[in-house]
């Protein structure tokens, strides 16, 4: 009954078992997400983005750092199709996009399990299958044992984990992170960075991560892009050479400090 109503009116092409059979086919094309000459001016005249072109390939974890208000989040919304750019276009398979929001955006009336199952439910995946996907994802983010808890009884970091798990259930080949760990404390944030980096390694998605924390950016990514003040442009690009898995001690490595310093300088130049 659930599924009838869900698919009845929408009638979109969100095919039933896409995550089962489509993932392998994606391996053929290595570019998962491409921005081509994106510019964005809002109706109120705010010129947010200018001439953004880059691509995220399979195996890339690209982080964009930039001052607040430079249009980083706007860029992700454009990638996800939540906003239309004024110029340029994005190449991406939107049916298979993972999006982790700034807030956990958990539904208060659902338990952790209910929340993590939501996306599979929206994609009409049968009950038993989605329960299994959700349980796997919950275990993966370390929330095992909290399945029956409601969001109100979770800490900020746990909510974010549940939100991550929710996105993981669909095994998206492209993962967009919109400054997801901005609201949690420093220690939790570092833990979550380590875990995200492990997930990236294990799941092999193409990641695009937005943040204003330089250490977070350098710690997790394969490449860091620095964005300027409004209108946001990419003003610098840094390859991050450290091997995965990266352990917490990396943060105290001189090479890490040096790279962070360079990113910071580029960021300041962009002001």
């Amino acid at each position, binding site marked *: 009954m659930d599924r009838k*109503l*869900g*698919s*009845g*009116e*929408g*009638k*979109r092409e*969100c095919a039933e078992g896409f995550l089962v059979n489509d993932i392998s086919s994606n391996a053929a094309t290595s570019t998962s997400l491409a921005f081509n000459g994106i510019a964005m001016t809002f109706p109120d005249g705010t010129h947010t983005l200018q001439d953004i072109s880059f691509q995220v390939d399979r195996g890339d974890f690209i982080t964009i750092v930039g001052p607040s208000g430079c249009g980083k989040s706007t860029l992700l*919304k454009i990638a*996800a*199709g*939540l906003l239309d750019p004024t110029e340029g276009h994005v190449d991406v398979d*939107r*049916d298979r*996009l993972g*999006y982790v*929001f*700034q*807030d956990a*955006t958990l*539904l*208060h*009336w*659902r338990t952790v399990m209910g929340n993590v199952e*939501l*996306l599979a*439910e*929206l*994609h009409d995946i049968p009950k038993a299958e989605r329960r299994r996907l959700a349980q796997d994802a919950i275990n993966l983010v370390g929330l095992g044992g909290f399945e029956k808890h*409601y*969001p*109100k009884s979770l800490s900020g970091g746990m909510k974010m984990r549940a939100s991550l798990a929710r996105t993981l259930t669909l095994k998206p080949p492209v993962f967009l992170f919109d400054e997801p760990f901005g609201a949690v404390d420093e220690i939790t944030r570092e833990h979550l960075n380590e875990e995200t980096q492990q997930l990236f390694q294990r799941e092999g998605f193409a990641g695009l991560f937005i943040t204003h924390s330089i250490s977070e950016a350098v710690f997790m990514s394969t490449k860091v892009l620095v964005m300027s003040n409004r209108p946001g442009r990419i003003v610098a690009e840094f390859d991050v050479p450290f091997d995965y898995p990266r352990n917490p001690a990396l943060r105290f490595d001189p090479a890490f400090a040096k790279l962070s310093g360079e990113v910071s300088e580029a960021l300041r130049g962009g002001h």
Partner: protein
Amino acid sequence: MTMTPEASTKAAAADLSGGGVGAALSGATRQAERSRGQGIAATLLPPLAMGALIIGGWYFVTYVLLEPQRRFLLSAPHEVLQVGFLDWGNFSEILSGLWSSTRVAMIGLAISIALGFVLATIMSQAKVFERALFPYMVIVQAVPILAIVPLISFWWGTGQTSRIVVCIIISLFPIIVNTLFGLQSAEKGMHDLFTLHQASRVTRLRKLMFPAGMPAIFAGLRISAGLSVIGAIVGDFFFGKGDVGIGQLLRKYANQLQGEELLAAVIMSSALGVGVFLLFGWIQNVAIGRWHDSEGVTA
């Protein structure tokens, strides 16, 4: 204050029964017992004291302020109790009137809920509908109920239907406003999530907007349930025909100077309102208490 000695004797009893379990443990028990006793005293004492004050004031008015020949205006509490509640003939009349009015109120409320949900859902789907409909709802809400009672009896007569119409008119607005507010209360990020995953309108309503709106919807229901009871009584009072409800009884008792029955009927009407309010508070608690911190729901 009167509770303290009692609490301490209880604590002493606990100490005795505790025997040799350990001083620390029984000390803790005593502490808990005492604070619980004080908690109950703190919650019950003020309203009880106030109640005693009110009854005292009532007696004062009856026996001191009113001369004996005007005492029928406010009979003493024990007389109201005797005539209005303990005389089964009178009390059963009041109860059956109350039941008739309750039925009317609940039918009216049910129709209001159905109508209100439909209208709020329509308005939640497009701003155009909200703009088109809202002013007229405010107008209907703003008409004093007494002003349209003649119109209602003109159209629907003076029977059950008219009473139900009064209930609907009086209780519809809070349901619409609160349901609409509730439907619009889901966060933008949640909507984005549903948009990203191409949820249909129906799915969005069922899985996002209605659940997110439940706290507001219940707030509306509680207000409307109370109003519907008032509507049933007012309607019955004015139309004064057909199945005898509490409104007709109130009018009859007033006309026949049956002060005790009148007061008993007033008290019972108010009890009905309170009961309905508590009932919906309880339903709310059962329905959404697990995930929502509903404040003010103690029932």
